[in-house]
């Protein structure tokens, strides 16, 4: 058969199909647009009829027939709206289908009747002249981009970075200046509660006059450093980013430096700018060490001796606690440390002693291990012991007691955290039998929930207003925000006796000392995943860069995503065992091993 003769009817047919589909598409398009305009003009939930009926119902709230009529009208309006919406959507699909048919027809025509381009007239050789002109046009474009960029920069430049910096400082100062006012209010409130309600187990023993004005770290400085056990505020959450995930302490990969620590201790590193602080102790000696963050060089060490009131005999401590289990803290002007002997000491940044005192030998059968924390210029000590438990705040510059709140709790080994609830900063402590919150400026108790028991070692986790407390042979309890504070959910499946949990807005991550790591949905307590790390874990997890960093006792850092999947990211060995929680600051991780301090970059 003649190919040409078969092609012509086919092309004619394809053209007709394309034309019919084109007309169909145009009609559908018009209908869809009209429908769309109608939908735009109609607000199905706010029609005048509906408003009038609602008004009548307000006047006659008991009129059930009117209520039914409103419901029926509402349903009708919604049905009409969604039907129109469905029509528009179907119209879109019909449009798509018809246009596809048109394109197919036209492409088919193109394929069976290719458009052979005419052979162009021979051009004179313009290659180099065109190239020259192209260069010019590239230059013009470049000039246009540069001048456009400069113009945009000129019109929009505000030195935003400088403004943000200065405002941040101003806000920090403003926040500082309002402290005494808040403090007075909080004291008054707490006194009312104490007088009227028997639920409080505590007594405010002493309050101090207004704090002397002095400089203490801005929020920016606190977030930039790691001045507390488990990072800023002690919550285990690191605000900075870009931390390493892979290293090898055996080969030295990503290990910036490694320095031997002169004395043993289970406290974690404290970082302030370019300095790292640790304490160490044995039965005869107690020392504080300062290392250079850049090189790991030991800058100074200070002997903690001749502290007024130090007992003549050393306390009996468990080998797993030791004499220097409490992590130090700093406000950038001084560093503070506490030992199992009850010695509390403040050193200036050059290692010279600012003040020292003994709090009395802690009645603690394993040895005191609660870490220190700073709130503005107040050094806060959680001193939970077999009798006479208390939380005490000292003036960081003088060592004078600012406030002391007695706690009707049993001995504990947990550490305090600071929690910003949006309304104020709370100091949250856990010990058998309560999780309790205090105003860190005054020591006034804000709330307490009776939910925990036993020898409490893990500190609480805080995120999104929720507080999470856990202890072995007791339970995991999630305390919801709001008044009154109540337990939202509990679980007893997995419990920890040493490492503390950490949480973000969505998830709670709970390690156990026997090497299991569990993730819960923070709001509901639904268990999302469980991981077996296969080695004991004493260090607490840290949440940085959207990852969980969990160090096991053999020194392997298990890193996985802090989400509902817990996807493994890396397992990085330190090269020696460790039970200390790592410190994160300025893209570096500092880990205290059994014998060495490591800096990972």
């Amino acid at each position, binding site marked *: 058969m003649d190919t040409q003769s078969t092609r012509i009817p086919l092309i004619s047919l394809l053209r007709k199909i394309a034309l019919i589909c084109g007309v169909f598409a145009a009609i559908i398009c018009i209908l869809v647009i009209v429908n769309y305009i109608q939908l735009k003009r109609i607000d199905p939930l706010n029609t005048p009829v509906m408003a009038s009926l609602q008004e009548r119902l307000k006047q006659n709230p008991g009129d059930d027939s009117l209520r039914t009529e409103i419901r029926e009208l509402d349903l009708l309006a919604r049905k009409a709206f969604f039907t129109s919406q469905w029509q528009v959507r179907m119209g879109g699909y019909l449009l798509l289908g018809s246009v596809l048919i048109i394109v197919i027809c036209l492409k088919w025509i193109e*394929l069976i009747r290719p458009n052979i381009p005419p052979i*162009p007239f021979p051009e004179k050789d313009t290659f*180099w002249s065109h190239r020259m002109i192209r260069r010019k046009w590239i230059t013009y474009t470049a000039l246009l*981009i540069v001048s456009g960029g400069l113009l945009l920069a000129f019109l929009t430049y505000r030195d935003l970075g400088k403004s943000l910096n200065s405002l941040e400082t101003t806000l920090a100062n403003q926040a500082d200046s309002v402290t005494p006012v808040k403090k007075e209010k909080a004291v008054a409130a707490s006194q009312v509660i104490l007088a009227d309600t028997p639920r409080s187990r505590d007594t405010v023993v002493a309050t101090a006059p207004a704090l002397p004005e002095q400089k203490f770290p801005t929020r920016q400085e606190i977030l930039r450093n790691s001045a507390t056990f488990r990072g800023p505020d002690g919550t285990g959450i690191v605000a900075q980013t870009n931390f390493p995930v892979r290293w090898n302490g055996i080969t030295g990969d990503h290990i910036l430096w490694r320095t031997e620590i002169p004395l043993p201790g289970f406290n974690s590193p404290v970082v302030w700018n370019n300095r790292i602080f640790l304490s160490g102790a044995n039965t005869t000696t107690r020392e504080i060490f300062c290392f250079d963050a850049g090189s790991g060089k030991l800058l100074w060490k200070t002997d903690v001796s001749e502290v007024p009131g130090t007992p003549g005999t050393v306390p009996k401590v468990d080998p797993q606690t030791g004499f220097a289990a409490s992590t130090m803290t700093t406000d950038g002007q001084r560093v503070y440390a506490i030992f199992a002997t009850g010695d509390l000491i403040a050193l200036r940044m050059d290692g010279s002693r600012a003040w020292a005192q003994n709090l009395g030998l802690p009645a603690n059968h394993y040895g005191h291990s609660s870490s220190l924390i700073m709130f503005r210029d107040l050094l806060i000590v959680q001193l939970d012991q077999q009798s006479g438990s208390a939380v005490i705040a000292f003036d960081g510059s003088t060592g004078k007691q600012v406030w002391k709140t007695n706690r009707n709790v049993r001995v504990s080994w947990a550490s305090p955290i600071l929690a910003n609830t949006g309304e104020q900063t709370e100091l949250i402590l856990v010990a058998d039998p309560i999780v309790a919150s205090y105003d860190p400026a005054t020591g006034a108790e804000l709330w307490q929930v009776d939910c925990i028991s036993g020898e409490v070692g893990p500190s609480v986790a805080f995120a999104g207003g929720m507080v999470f407390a856990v202890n072995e042979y007791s339970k995991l309890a999630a305390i919801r925000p709001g008044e009154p504070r109540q337990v939202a959910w509990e679980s007893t499946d997995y419990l920890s006796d040493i490492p503390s949990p950490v949480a973000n807005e969505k998830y709670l991550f709970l390690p156990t000392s026997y090497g299991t790591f569990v993730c819960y949905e923070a709001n509901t307590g639904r268990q999302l995943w469980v991981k077996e790390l296969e080695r004991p874990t004493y260090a607490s997890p840290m949440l940085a860069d959207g990852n969980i960093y969990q160090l096991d006792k053999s020194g392997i850092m298990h890193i996985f995503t802090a989400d509902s999947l817990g996807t493994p990211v890396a397992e990085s060995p330190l090269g020696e065992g460790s039970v200390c929680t790592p410190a994160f600051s300025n893209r570096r991780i500092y880990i205290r091993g059994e014998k060495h301090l490591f800096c990972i970059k």
Partner: protein
Amino acid sequence: MKKHQITGLIVFFLLLGWHVAAQVIQRFPRPDFESGYVTPETLQPGARAGFLELVDLLVLIAAISVTSWAVLKRRSRLLVFWISMFSLAYFGFYREGCVCSIGSIQNVTLAIFSGGYRIPLTVLAFFLIPLVFTLAFGRTFCAGVCPFGALQDLVSFKPLKLDYRINAALDIIPYLYLGLAVLYAATGTDFIICRYDPFVGIFRINATVGMFVFAGILLLSGIFIARPYCRFLCPYGVILNWISRFSWKHLTITPSVCVQCRLCEDSCPYEAIVKPGPWKNPESRRTMVRKFLSGVVLIPVFIFLGGWTGSLLHESLARVNGKVRLAEELLYPAKRLQSPETKELIAFKASGKPAQELYVEATEILNRFYTGGWILGGFIGLAIGAFLLGKLFSRHRTDYEPNRGACFSCARCIDYCPVQS
């Protein structure tokens, strides 16, 4: 009515209709569910099962392999066309344009610059596999697999020759787009390639007005300017262009010896055929050497000038970042008074988060943009310098050859060559 006029009208109707269909969905505000259910974002489709991701990967490899075979061995434009239609259906309408090799640039960048982000292996494969095939066989990915290219090819009914001066000017745009996409991904600000993707709205029948308008402009202009997105915007095309220049086997117009019939001279809608020549440079050798040396000296100047401009622009660039915008809104209440508070500002205030924290974060982001501005500007300066330097010289050719960098390996030119074996 002429064919291309009909097509233009149809495309216009199509986009208008789609836009209308998409807009209706947004009429009701999103409800807040008490159960905690979070309405998914429509920026990208939901997660895909592992084995289906593997299927996507296998389809990708198979499609590029078959396209490469069709271009290099079978030398069939028709086959390439049908593969591209399959890719349009699969990667476009079925997979809704995601995962996509073009957007994967951002995932790779984010994975490099952010320790907290782990790139999914499928995305990494979608980034790397086309590059590997391009190094081997030229841009066969563009010819038969990229759904964006396929869609534009579909509407390319009346491709016209673009003035060479405009071509020269527009060639810089993809470099700018690539630089910006990398900057915003590296700073964790946004995936702008995905956000301003012109075609996913069509694939998903759901997009913003801006995206539909952008798609409309591209498709309407695509009737007369073949593949405008691929040639003058595609950031992935920049990388493919570089790699394709060194490809092991590339499409040839003639399977044997060029008979200089000139039938193919105007056959490429992308103007990617290099004519024989150049014959004689009117400029003296001395002038050329002087120009070359000037170019070499000027490139660092271009880099510095570009970097400096980029650094000055860092605030403007950083304003795309939500935290910087929020911090600025808090910082300049006078400006805010002119318009109602944004939802972001209301949410931030309700969160109780201290302003200082936001300012700290915004300052850090600004610092990153300052460094990024220098790098972005320097990159653009380098690209412009390289363009200028490249225009000084040319390799002498005796046959009609595809421009290896710009050629999409679509195999159109093959049909015009009278030499069959």
